[in-house]
């Protein structure tokens, strides 16, 4: 492997890492502003123009606060809990195709840190590991409420992973590949062979199941009883303070960002945009515009996440489990059968 290839990938990984952290930081600001506008109020507007420096003030607050580790807690697990949550959240960003290929000099650089041929499966595995972060956090706190919150959160997450995986299987039946970059390439442009090329238009129900399960995986309302204040004080992050709490909250926003990126890549064409071949631009320009379009799609999904949060009341625990096992999983299974039937029908 040439060193310049490694250098390219390192630079892309570094840039992606910084951009993800920056977007997660400003997601907190966007959450507060969007929540405010949806509720007929203004949100933070004192820290800098339009309150833009609010996340910096929050970060400063987190750094300066006292770090309390309960004496009766399991110290090692207490400290690595948020670390696991953050690590798994960031690890999933490795296979996301940020853009097409850039031509630098005489080399073609693909804007994806790692082009695994089992990209989708890798993301799944890492997301399943993310449950450990919450589980360990709740257990290590040595606190009944934290444990309750952690148990509810982990059972919720593993229940909805089923629905997510099954709805993805029907997508994989269409794409024939698990590699993220190939899936995005198959959705080139907007219109192909007499129908939309984006998979959303080919599998709308699959997308619906996937987005509901993604909400549950990110512990976002209406599935956020793992951390709701009214019922569980703080849930699994009751005992955490300062940077560890910051890590948990950050990991949640990063998860939200990665889920949005995933959905945009798999169902909405990733970095493809309508008329991308007809504008007559050079390859580099198409790639750059594609990256911008990809991020716009991600921001639209993040807005949708927040919009739903402030619209729907949260589910009760039994309603949530019923939805996961008795509605989402059978629906996804039936969807697989239907997709298979349509594929067989089209082959004749």
């Amino acid at each position, binding site marked *: 492997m040439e060193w310049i290839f490694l250098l390219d990938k390192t630079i892309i990984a570094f840039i992606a890492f910084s951009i993800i952290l920056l977007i997660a930081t400003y997601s907190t600001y966007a959450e507060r502003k*969007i929540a*405010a*506008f*949806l*509720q*007929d*109020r*203004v949100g933070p*507007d004192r820290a800098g123009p339009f309150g833009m420096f609010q996340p910096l003030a929050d970060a400063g607050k987190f750094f300066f606060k006292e770090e309390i580790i309960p004496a009766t807690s399991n110290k090692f697990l207490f400290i690595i809990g948020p670390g696991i949550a953050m690590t798994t959240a960031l690890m999933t960003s490795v296979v996301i195709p940020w853009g097409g290929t850039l031509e630098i000099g005489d080399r073609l650089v693909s804007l994806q840190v790692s082009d695994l041929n089992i990209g989708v499966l890798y993301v799944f595995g890492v997301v399943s590991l993310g449950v450990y972060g919450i589980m360990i956090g709740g257990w290590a706190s040595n606190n009944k409420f934290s444990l309750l919150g952690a148990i509810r959160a982990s059972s919720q997450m593993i229940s909805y992973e089923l629905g997510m995986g099954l709805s993805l299987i029907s997508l994989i039946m269409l794409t024939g590949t698990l590699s993220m970059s190939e899936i995005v390439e198959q959705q080139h442009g907007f219109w192909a062979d007499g129908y939309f090329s984006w998979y959303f238009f080919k599998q709308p129900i699959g997308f619906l199941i996937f987005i509901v399960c993604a909400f549950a995986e990110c512990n976002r309302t209406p599935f956020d009883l793992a951390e709701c204040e009214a019922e569980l004080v703080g849930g699994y992050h009751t005992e955490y303070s300062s940077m560890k709490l910051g890590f948990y909250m950050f990991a949640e926003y990063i998860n939200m960002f990665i889920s949005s990126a995933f959905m945009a890549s798999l169902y909405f064409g990733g970095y493809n945009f309508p008329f991308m071949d007809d504008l007559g631009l050079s390859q580099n320009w198409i790639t750059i515009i594609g990256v911008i379009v990809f991020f716009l799609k991600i921001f639209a999904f993040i807005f949708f996440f927040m*919009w*739903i949060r*402030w*619209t*729907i009341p949260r589910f009760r625990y039994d309603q949530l489990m019923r939805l996961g096992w008795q509605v989402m999983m059978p629906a996804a299974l039936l969807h697989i059968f239907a997709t298979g039937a349509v594929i067989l029908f089209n082959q004749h």
Partner: protein
Amino acid sequence: MKQLTNRSKVVSDKSMTMAEAAYLPAVFTGLGITLKHFFRKPATLKYPEQKREFTAVYRGRHVLKRDENGAERCTACGLCAVSCPAEAITMVADERKKGEENLYREEKYAAIYEINMLRCIFCGLCEEACPKQAIFLTTEIAPASYEREDFIWGKDRLVEGVESTKRIDITARQDR
């Protein structure tokens, strides 16, 4: 059962229709409602750039008034301190010396007069109790501070200025 009110509503316990049980149509209706609110003008007033309008009899911060000749009206009788339910007012009286006739109306005056704005509940009982029409509540708000000492207001902050431009208008309150 006979209802005690004629405004009661009958609660329906019909089971959910198919559309209600599916939940998704209700979700979309809700999304529409919240999106409408997103584009509305917010109801927030951005204090201190924008301030709310108060009525003329709003009970804000206190002022110790002077009469037409510029002499302080307060005679340190202590009725305001006694009537204060929060015990926020304290004072030390003193005798008027020769040559101070233009400063104080009567022979007894308040050398030290302090109101603890953190204890004050802005009820206006001191205003009602004063026999000399000396203390009034104005429509201004007591400003905030980070230090507790800044909330003990002495005569320097309570007595209004001598010049006519520095007087505070409380005519709307005087008929009460």
